[in-house]
Each structure stands twice: as structure tokens, then as C-alpha cells.
């Protein structure tokens, strides 16, 4: 049990260290909002067809940017910051203390999840205030489930990713090269209605599109049910389990040489 207590305590220090760097904290939150504003500025007045009727494109962009925010705060964050801590010798230092290895990583993940929840809430509130997007009520549990499964999956994948990132300097370049193309073929930044069939199929293999689809349903104002997209959620979860397995198998506490 004491490992759990140490991990919980570690979350507080992760959190404190995060807020001690206000510029980094500010842009962590400003970055997805910036995308939300830009996409709404460019396409917000267009009308789009969603299951059940027609609505403004803003209704598409809020869950899409929420997806982007989740991926950014979990996958991209861990895949760049953990190799940084590894190169500095911070991971190895913790490993010589009574704090269990899983305890340290759980604390990192917990902190990433806290940031993710704040971001999704912020994106939703911003959309409701400035773009008249409905805040999910009936489908709120569905949003939370998608958020939880998405955060789990992309944290696992982010930690697995550290195994192929040779050093901290290479981190951001590799992460961007992986995640940006994926976001474009996953209906997050743009809808790929006119895209070739194979692009859409390729996007469907990866988890980003499925997380986005699950959130799109939950944010659809015409949706009358509870909004659970179990098929999409399931695929995201499978990716999470695979990521967790790879992370446990290949994670390194020492700088790669």
C-alpha cells in the first residue's frame, strides 16, 4: 500500500513543478484553444451535416479539438518529457529510492490526466461561450468514458513511444512526425469526406479517429441516446492495452546509448 501513497505524493510534486513554470503551463492550455479559434475563424460559419440534421462547423471543431487536446496532453507530453527526464538521470535517480518505478510513472500519468481533464473542460466551455456549441448533458457520461479510455490509451502509447526515442532532442521531432499526419487523416483538423478511400481506411486503423468519432457523437446536439460509441471506444482501449504492454516490455530507465 505504501507504494500507492508514495505515488500519490509524487503527483503533488509533479503538479507543483508544472505550475512553477508559468510560460510552459500557459501554452499547454493556450495551444489547443488557439487551434479552436483558428479553425472556427476559417470554417466556423459553414454548415455541416451530422447524423440527425445540420449544424454549424463549430459543433464539429469542439470535440475534434478536444481529441487533439487529449492526444497532446497525454501522448505528446509523455513521449517528449519522459525521455528528457531519462536523459537528465532523473528516472535513474528515482529508481534508486523506495518509490516504485510504476509509482513514478503512475504519478506522471495522473498529472497528465489532470491536465487533460482541465483542457477538455476548457475547450468545451470556450466552444459554448464563443461558438454556441451545446455542452453535453445527457451524453456527459459518454464524454467522460471517452476521455478516460482515451487518456489511458494515449498515456500508454506515449510511454511505449519513449522506447523508440533515442534521446530527448529527438523527442519532439519524432512525436510531431508521428502525430501530425495522424491527426490529418483522422478527421480531427479537417473532415476527409473527399479524401481517397484508402486514406480514410488507414485513419481507421489508428486510435485517434475512433476517439474523435466517439466524442463527435457525444457532442452531436441531435443525438437522443446516451451517446456511448462502444465500437470506437473498444478500438481505442485495445490500442491502450497494446501500448501498455509495449511500455512495460521496452521502457528504459537509463539514457539510450
Amino acid at each position, binding site marked *: 500500500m505504501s507504494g500507492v501513497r508514495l505515488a500519490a505524493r509524487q503527483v503533488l*510534486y509533479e503538479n507543483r513543478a508544472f505550475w*512553477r513554470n508559468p510560460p510552459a503551463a500557459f501554452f499547454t492550455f493556450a495551444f489547443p484553444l488557439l487551434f479552436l479559434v483558428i479553425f472556427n475563424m476559417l470554417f466556423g460559419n459553414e454548415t455541416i451535416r451530422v447524423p440527425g440534421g445540420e449544424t454549424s462547423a463549430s459543433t464539429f471543431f469542439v470535440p475534434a479539438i478536444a481529441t487533439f487536446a487529449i492526444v497532446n496532453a497525454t501522448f505528446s507530453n509523455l513521449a517528449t518529457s519522459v525521455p528528457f527526464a531519462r536523459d537528465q*538521470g*532523473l528516472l*535513474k*535517480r528515482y529508481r534508486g529510492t*523506495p518509490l516504485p518505478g510504476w509509482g513514478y510513472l503512475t504519478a506522471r500519468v495522473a498529472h497528465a490526466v489532470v491536465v487533460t481533464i482541465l483542457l477538455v473542460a476548457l475547450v468545451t466551455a470556450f466552444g459554448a461561450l464563443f461558438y454556441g456549441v451545446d455542452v453535453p448533458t445527457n451524453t456527459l457520461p459518454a464524454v467522460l468514458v471517452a476521455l478516460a479510455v482515451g487518456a489511458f490509451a494515449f498515456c500508454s502509447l506515449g510511454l511505449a513511444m519513449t522506447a523508440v526515442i533515442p534521446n530527448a532532442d529527438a523527442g519532439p521531432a519524432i512525436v510531431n512526425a508521428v502525430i501530425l499526419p495522424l491527426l490529418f487523416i483522422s478527421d480531427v483538423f479537417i473532415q476527409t469526406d473527399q479524401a481517397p478511400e484508402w486514406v480514410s481506411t488507414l485513419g481507421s486503423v489508428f486510435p485517434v479517429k475512433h476517439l474523435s468519432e466517439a466524442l463527435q457523437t457525444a457532442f452531436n446536439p441531435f443525438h437522443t441516446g446516451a451517446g456511448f460509441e462502444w465500437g470506437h471506444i473498444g478500438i481505442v482501449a485495445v490500442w491502450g492495452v497494446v501500448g501498455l504492454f509495449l511500455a512495460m516490455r521496452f521502457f528504459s530507465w*537509463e539514457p539510450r546509448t
Partner: protein
Amino acid sequence: MGEAAIEVRDLRKSYGDVEAVAGIDLTVARGEVVALLGPNGAGKTTTVEILEGHRDRDGGEVSVLGHDPADRSLDLRKRIGIVLQTTGVEPYLTIAETVEQFRGLYPSPRSLDEVLEAVGLTDLRDRRVKRLSGGQQRRLDVAVGLAGDPDLLFLDEPTTGFDPSARRDAWDMILNLRSLGKTVLLTTHYMDEAQSLADRVAIIVRGRIVAEGPPAILTGRDRHATISFRDSGDGLPVEVGEAEVEGGMVRIRTEEPTRVLHALTSWATARGEELPELSVARPSLEDVYLELTRDPT
């Protein structure tokens, strides 16, 4: 076996074809400060990292406070402090917060004030880690290693890269640890550091311990003395044996300094001359070290 803090028998570790540790035996008693001294790449860090549980070994028996470090047992991690050669801390926390953070990981930590006092960081307790100098960061590393009030402390090259005054301060700090009764295993490639700090020195060369003992005994093993004086160009009496002249100084290495000195001084006084800058020197740890680490070519 129960008395020793560290027991190592025939420790071996290879990286590919390179045998980094080639059969090391080492015993460190409780309360002892032992230095592993050797050139870069001699196997010092590999050895301590095996003892810390950071690295697997290929062969040999290892016991650290009664545990095999390869098991990475929680009980052992509660009782050791590790100061790695390169290591990091959160840059945006203060010194006091950082030490607190690590204190909280141990069942019976040393008090914050005592830890800061031991490493001389009391006055800087509220300074952010990011703003510390290299020497101050290294002290913080040691503070973090001490936070859990360990029975055994590993210090891997604690003063590498320090300026002379920062090194003196670090030495005082380590001597302070000794007075607290801590067992310390440190690695260094500075002779004077090993000589000043350690109860016992083990010299490692190419993965083996080539000499081991208290610094005074190590230097005492060599019965040679070196007699030197400024060359006046008058030659030497035949009784002194072989001499070498380098940089205007005559050097005579001998196992019979009394006899040689007598011959020299009689020769000089008979001619009514002084031997300028005359000195007789016992070998330093550095001489012993250089002798032992010389490449066998």
C-alpha cells in the same frame, strides 16, 4: 558476513567483448569510508552501479547490507543513498522542496535542517534548483542521497568538475559524513581525494583491484625514496648509483636513501659545495598509482 556493509566476491561484468569488471573482491566494513580509485574506464562506475542495483552482473557474489542488489528489494532501497555521476532534479522546485520530496520517500528520513546543514546549503534553501551553480547542484545531489538517512552512501565521482575551493568544501562535507558514522563507498580519479577522505583505497585498473589498503600502507609498500637536487654539472660520486637528470634536476631513486645521502653529502662537503634544492621524498599515492596503472607494454 553480517558485520560487513558490502561483500563482493569475484564480481564480473562484460559489455560485448570488453570485460569491464574482471573479478573484483571487495569488503567494506560498517562505518568505513572506502574509495575506488582508478583511471576513466577502469570499471569503477560499473562496479558501484552493480552494488546499487542499477546494473546486472555476469558473475560473482554480491551482498549489500545483507541483500543481493540484483533483487532490487524495497528494504535495501530504504537503507542506501545513491549519488550518481550524472543525475537530475526538477529544475523549478526549491532546494528545500527537493530535499522534502525525497525525504518523503523514506520511512525514517533525516531532518531537513540536518540534511541542508550537512551539505552546506542552509542559506540557499529557498533558491530554485535551476539557479544553482554546478557545485551547488552537486551538493544538492548529495543532500538528496542523504535525505533518507541511509546506512550506506554511494558517491560516484562526487567532485569531478569542481574548482579547488568547491572540492575542499565537498571534502569537508564527506568528512562530516564519516563523523556521522555513515558507510561510504566513493569513486574518484583524484589521488589526493582518495588520500584525504578514505580509510581504505582500492585501486582499480582494467576491471581488477591491483592494490588495496589504507593510503599510508599503500604508499609504505614502496620502500623507494627519491633524492633530488639542482645539477651543478660537476658529475656525481660513483657510490650513488644510477641517476637521471631532467630539467636541470638530478634525481636518484633508491631503496637505501641513508647510504646514498651520506655518500652525496660527504662528496659535496669535501668539495666545499652545497647541493642546491636538496630534498628526499617518499612516494606519494600518486606515484604508487602511476606505477600500478602504467600500461604493461
